[in-house]
């Protein structure tokens, strides 16, 4: 248990959240190609950051900072962390941030093809979720030994939470695809938009039932109720932001340029989406940590391992 390590992991996670906002600002400002150069911007390390280059180059600088912080975290982990699997997770994060930088460069070099841009946005969420998990694994609450709670009967929470996290991840990918292929001057709603709204319904059902079940069954377990409450609140905010994003985007095709209300709402929707994902991951990890699988779940996993 190392308090400094936890704090540093938390710092990396927060910096990554800021990086997601910086990246979303690039997309909303349509600034992804403000320079066709990479890794330098117009052959310079510090170009004059005017126009959209402010967003594009700013994002690169925040990303560089996060990359350096991640290297720092890995060094810290290898110095202080005894659990090999946590150290390995740190290495995975480092790999992730490197891949992310390369994907970012690739998408600039290829003039933002949908697949690469969407992959960059998706890997961003995975990297964020890895840094959040590292913070969870190095936290005090994770490491103190505590009695396990019995899963109450019924559908085991671990499955519901995992399904919720997986569905949110899918929803993030659909959202990224939507944002990077956006044609808001076509008749609305487009198929992709409908898919995303369908995904929102699925996420609401799964995450809604996961959090409500936690709040009902384990009301005295703050380790579970806290992330559950936060996730539920964020989900409601996220749904409203999604609706707002739709409204402002639909009204935007005749705008002379990306305007602040549209930029603000869409960036908030991306950022809140990352937070919903991260809290759901925290909740899921803690459910696995705190709850002992009930009979049913044991039987189920035994059956799947045999079959």
């Amino acid at each position, binding site marked *: 248990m190392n308090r400094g390590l936890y704090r540093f992991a938390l710092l990396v996670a927060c910096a990554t959240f800021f990086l997601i906002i910086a990246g979303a600002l690039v997309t909303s*400002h*349509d*600034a*992804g*190609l*403000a*320079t*066709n*150069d990479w890794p330098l911007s*117009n052959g310079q390390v510090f*170009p*004059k950051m*005017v*126009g*959209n*280059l*402010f967003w594009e180059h700013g994002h690169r600088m925040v990303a560089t900072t996060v990359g350096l912080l991640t290297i720092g975290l890995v060094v810290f982990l290898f110095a202080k962390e005894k*659990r*090999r*699997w946590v150290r*390995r*997770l740190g290495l995975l994060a480092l790999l992730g941030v490197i891949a992310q930088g390369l994907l970012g460069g690739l998408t600039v070099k290829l*003039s933002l*093809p*949908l*697949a690469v841009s*969407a*992959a960059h946005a*998706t890997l961003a969420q*995975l990297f964020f979720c890895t840094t959040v*998990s590292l913070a969870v*694994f190095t936290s005090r609450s994770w490491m103190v030994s505590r009695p396990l709670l019995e899963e109450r009967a019924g559908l085991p929470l671990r499955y519901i939470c*995992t399904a919720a*996290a*997986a569905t949110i*991840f*899918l929803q993030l*990918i*659909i959202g990224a*695809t939507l944002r990077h292929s956006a*044609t808001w*001057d*076509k008749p609305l709603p487009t198929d992709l938009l409908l898919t995303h709204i369908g995904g929102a319904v699925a996420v609401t059902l799964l995450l809604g039932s996961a959090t409500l079940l936690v709040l009902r069954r384990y009301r005295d377990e703050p380790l579970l109720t806290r992330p559950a409450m936060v996730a539920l609140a964020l989900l409601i905010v996220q749904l409203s932001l999604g609706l707002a994003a739709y409204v402002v985007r639909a009204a935007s*095709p*005749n*705008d*002379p*340029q*990306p305007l602040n209300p549209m930029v603000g709402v869409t960036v908030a929707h991306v950022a809140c989406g990352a937070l919903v994902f991260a809290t759901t991951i925290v909740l*899921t*990890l803690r459910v*696995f*940590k705190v709850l002992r699988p009930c009979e049913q779940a044991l039987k189920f996993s035994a059956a799947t391992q045999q079959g």
Partner: protein
Amino acid sequence: MSMKQTKVWLILMIALSLLGLASACSKAPEGTSDNNAPTTTGKAYTAKGNEGTITGTIAYNGAAPAPKKIDTSADPVCGQKSPNLATEDNVVTNGKLEYAFVYIKDGATADGTKVGDYTFTAPSDTVTLDQSGCHYKPHVMGAMVNQKLNITNSDPTQHNIHFTPKNNPDWNQSQPNGAPALTHSFARSEVLVPVKCNQHPWMKAYVGVLKHPFFAVSAEDGTFTIKGVPPGTYTVAAWHEGGANGTEKTMSVTVPASGSAKADFAFGEGATAAGAPGLEMMPAIEVPVIGHH
């Protein structure tokens, strides 16, 4: 404890990634259309001296949407040079529309040969797209297939010229202040190729690319002239930007030998001449090129 957690975490991550991968794969990017080399079959066109002209006026009925003011504060240089930039999608003066792109879309010369069956060589002179005051001049222009397009930067700031065609490769190039002119050309016809600057997101222009030289852009008073048209009967199209693909109207005209034909178009309210609004941006004559990819 630790082993179990690793496993759980890994399984979670693997499941998530697989799901992600599956969905990413099912959404393969579209729009990477054919790579066919442009076809250059057909007989070379030679002027016979009896060519005529097509002239006309583009009207705009009713009140046009007012130009919107552009906020250039993101780059101070822009505001200094052009403090009053506004959108140019509907430039209407006295009911006449500027920046409509008019071209021969189809038809045949008097001897029955389709325009599309001729080959025309691109002129050696270049056409110029200038960036001045964080604004493209002109806003709409035409060029022939393979004709050199000169891109100049007259501003003390950097621009980024980004052509986003559907039928030609994407092209994106930064041009710092003081940099020499860039040149570009298009190998396939396309009406029209959008141009934007990713540095100054309000900068927009269009280039109509055709295999033949029979095109024009309406002037401030709405008039246009297409010169050197061989006698024949043609479908003439007028295109005006707006929406995803712009609006195109067509009409049939007959150009007499050494004579002139008239093609007046109207956009705006109740202007339902030939052609439906929201028509697809089709490459003028190379029709078979798209449609299948």
